C-alpha cells in the first residue's frame, strides 16, 4: 500500500500559508484568552486590547507568560474554558512548591494526538508498525502523549511503561516491536541487558526506529545508540506546558527538529534583554499556543536554549527547525527525563535538623546511565552510632525520591567538607556533558 509522506496537509504549507494560518489562529486565540481571568487582567493591566493584536508582529506587545505564572495561578487560574469542558489534567511533580497544572479539553487531546502521530509518520512509522512506549505513564506526558499519538497513527501500541527491562526485551521479540520510544540513557540500558541475555537487536528483533527525547543528548550519543541497536534514532522535543511530546521532531534528514507552526508561534529571545535574536543565534525558546482550547499560553518562556536553523530543509516541510537543546536559562536539571530544580532538593534537606545548609548536587554518567549524588553535611552532635546514620541517610534518600522522582545517592559528610565558593553558591556540578 502506497502512503503519502505527509500525515496532515498543514505540513506542506509554504511560509506564506503558515503565516496566514498563524495570524488567523493568533487572533482567535487572543479572543479566547479573554475568557481566562488571568489574561483578561494581564491585558487590562497594561491597557492592551485584544483588538491591538492583528498581525504576527503585534505578538511582541503581549507580556511573557512564565512558569511562575502557572504556579501562582495553581491549579485552574489559567483555564480559558469551564472545568466541565476539560477532560484531562497533567501536573508537574513537586510536593514542596506549587506544581504546575495543564488542562486539556477533548479537542486539545485530539490535537495533541494528531501532532504526535504527525511526528511519528514523518519518520516512517506506518499502521503496520508495532510501537512500544517505555516512558513512564501517569502524569508523565511522554506516556499518554505517545500512546494516543501512536494509536491515532494506527500502530499496534504497547504501553510497556518504564522499567522492567527483561520484560521490555521479551516484548520486542514476542510482539515484533519495530518502533520504540525511550529516553537515551534507557536505550543504552536496553542494549546492555540485551547483550547480557544474548539477544542481538539486529537479528533477534525487528527494531527499526527509536524515538529519543526528554533527556538532552549529544549527536555522538545518538550515533552510538543507533549503532548499538541497529536503528535510526530521531530526536523529539516537547514539554508538559505545551501538552508534552509532539512540539518539535526531527524529519528523516536528522538535522534539526521541525516545530509545528500551525500549533505554535516560535520566538527566540535573549534571556537577559528579552529582545529577539536573529535566526541561527542561540537564545531562549518562547512559544505561543495557537491551537489549544483549555489553556492557551501566550509567549511562554520555556527556559530551553536553542536556535532556529536557517535555510530550507530538503524534506519539503517549511516549518522552522530548532537545533537540539543547548541548555537552560534557569537552573533546572534534567535527569532521566525528569525535570528537577535544585530548590526542591534544598527544601527537602532543610527539613532535616541534623544537616547544615550547604549541599552539593553532582550529576554523572556511568555505563550510559545518569545518576545524581547529593552531598550533605552533618551537624548533629548526638550521632554516635551507625544505625542512626544509616536511618538518617535512608530517610533523606526517601524524602528526596518522593520529591524529585529519581533516587539520588545521598552522601553524608562532616561539616566543612563541601567547598565554599565565593559569591553565589555552586549547588550543582554537572559532569555529564549532555548539551555538547
Amino acid at each position, binding site marked *: 500500500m502506497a502512503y503519502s509522506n505527509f500525515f496532515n496537509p498543514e505540513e506542506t504549507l509554504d511560509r506564506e500559508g503558515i503565516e496566514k494560518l498563524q495570524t488567523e489562529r493568533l487572533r482567535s486565540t487572543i479572543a479566547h484568552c479573554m475568557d481566562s481571568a488571568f489574561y483578561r487582567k494581564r491585558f487590562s493591566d497594561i491597557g492592551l486590547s485584544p483588538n491591538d493584536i492583528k498581525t504576527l508582529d503585534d505578538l511582541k506587545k503581549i507580556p511573557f507568560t512564565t512558569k511562575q505564572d502557572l504556579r501562582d495561578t495553581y491549579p485552574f487560574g489559567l483555564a480559558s474554558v469551564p472545568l466541565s469542558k476539560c477532560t484531562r489534567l497533567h501536573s508537574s511533580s513537586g510536593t514542596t512548591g506549587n506544581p504546575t497544572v495543564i488542562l486539556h479539553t477533548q479537542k486539545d487531546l485530539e490535537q495533541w494526538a494528531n501532532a504526535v502521530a504527525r511526528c511519528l509518520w514523518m519518520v516512517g512509522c506506518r499502521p503496520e508498525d508495532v510501537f512500544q512506549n517505555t516512558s513512564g505513564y501517569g502524569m508523565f506526558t511522554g506516556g499518554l502523549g505517545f500512546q494516543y499519538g501512536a494509536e491515532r497513527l494506527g500502530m499496534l501500541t504497547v504501553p510497556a511503561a518504564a522499567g522492567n527491562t527483561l520484560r521490555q526485551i521479551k516484548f520486542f521479540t514476542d510482539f515484533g516491536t519495530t518502533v520504540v520510544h525511550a529516553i537515551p540513557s534507557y536505550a543504552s540500558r536496553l542494549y546492555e541487558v540485551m547483550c547480557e541475555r544474548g539477544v542481538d537487536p539486529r537479528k533477534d528483533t525487528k527494531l527499526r526506529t527509536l524515538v529519543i527525547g526528554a533527556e538532552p543528548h549529544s549527536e555522538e550519543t545518538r550515533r552510538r545508540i543507533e549503532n548499538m541497536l541497529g536503528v535510526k534514532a530521531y530526536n523529539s522535543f516537547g514539554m508538559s506546558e505545551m501538552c508534552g511530546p509532539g512540539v518539535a521532531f526531527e524529519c528523516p534528514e536528522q538535522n534539526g527538529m521541525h516545530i509545528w507552526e500551525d500549533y505554535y508561534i516560535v520566538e527566540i529571545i535573549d534571556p537577559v534583554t528579552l529582545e529577539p535574536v536573529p535566526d541561527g543565534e542561540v537564545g531562549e525558546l518562547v512559544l505561543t499556543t495557537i491551537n489549544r482550547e483549555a489553556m492557551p499560553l501566550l509567549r511562554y518562556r520555556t527556559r530551553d536554549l536553542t536556535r532556529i536553523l536557517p535555510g530550507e530543509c530538503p524534506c519539503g516541510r517549511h516549518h522552522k527547525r530548532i537545533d537540539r537543546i543547548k541548555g537552560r536559562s534557569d537552573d533546572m536539571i534534567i535527569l532521566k527525563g525528569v525535570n528537577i530544580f535544585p530548590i526542591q532538593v534544598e527544601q527537602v534537606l532543610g527539613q532535616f535538623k541534623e544537616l547544615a545548609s550547604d549541599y552539593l548536587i553532582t550529576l554523572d554518567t556511568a555505563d550510559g546511565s545518569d545518576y545524581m549524588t547529593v552531598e550533605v553535611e552533618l551537624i548533629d552532635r548526638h550521632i554516635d*552510632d551507625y544505625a542512626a*546514620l544509616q536511618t538518617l541517610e535512608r530517610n533523606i534518600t526517601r524524602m528526596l525520591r518522593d520529591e524529585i522522582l529519581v533516587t539520588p545517592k545521598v*552522601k*553524608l559528610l*562532616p561539616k566543612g567538607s563541601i567547598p565554599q565558593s565565593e559569591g553565589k553558591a555552586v549547588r550543582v556540578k554537572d559532569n555529564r556533558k549532555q548539551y555538547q
Partner: protein
Amino acid sequence: MTIHQLSIFIENKAGTLVVILRQLKEAGIQLIASTISDTVDYGICRIICSEPVRAYETLRDAGVAVSLCEVIAVALDDEPGRAADAIGILSDEGISIAYLYSFLLGGKGVLVFRTDNNERALDALQRGGLDIIREKDLSKLAI
C-alpha cells in the same frame, strides 16, 4: 557513673584521621583507647581520652563533627570468663548493647559499651558488684 567518649564523624578519605589526632596532640590530650569501624563512605571514630570535655571543646572549636557521648566502662580482673560474667548481667536484664570495645589498662581489662538504657545497665552492674570506672579515674589511669 558513665564516662565521656568522643564520637567523631569522619569521611572515609586518606588524611582525615591524622588531622584530628594532631589537634588532640597539640592540646596535650592523651588517648587511652580508640576504635573505628569500616564503612563505605564514612566512619565513626570513638575515643576515650584523658580529658574528654577539653578534647571535645578543642575539636568542636576546630570545626570537627564531634559529639560527647556517655558510655559505661567497667574494669575486670584480667582472667578468663570475666567478660562473660559482666555481659551476662546485662543480658539477664534484657539490656541490648549498641557497641562495645575493650582494652587493657593498669593490669585490668576494660570493657567500654553503650547500651539502649545506660541507667538500668549501671544499676544492674553495680548490684552485680562490678568495678565501674569513673571519669575522674581516667586521668589517673592514663598516667
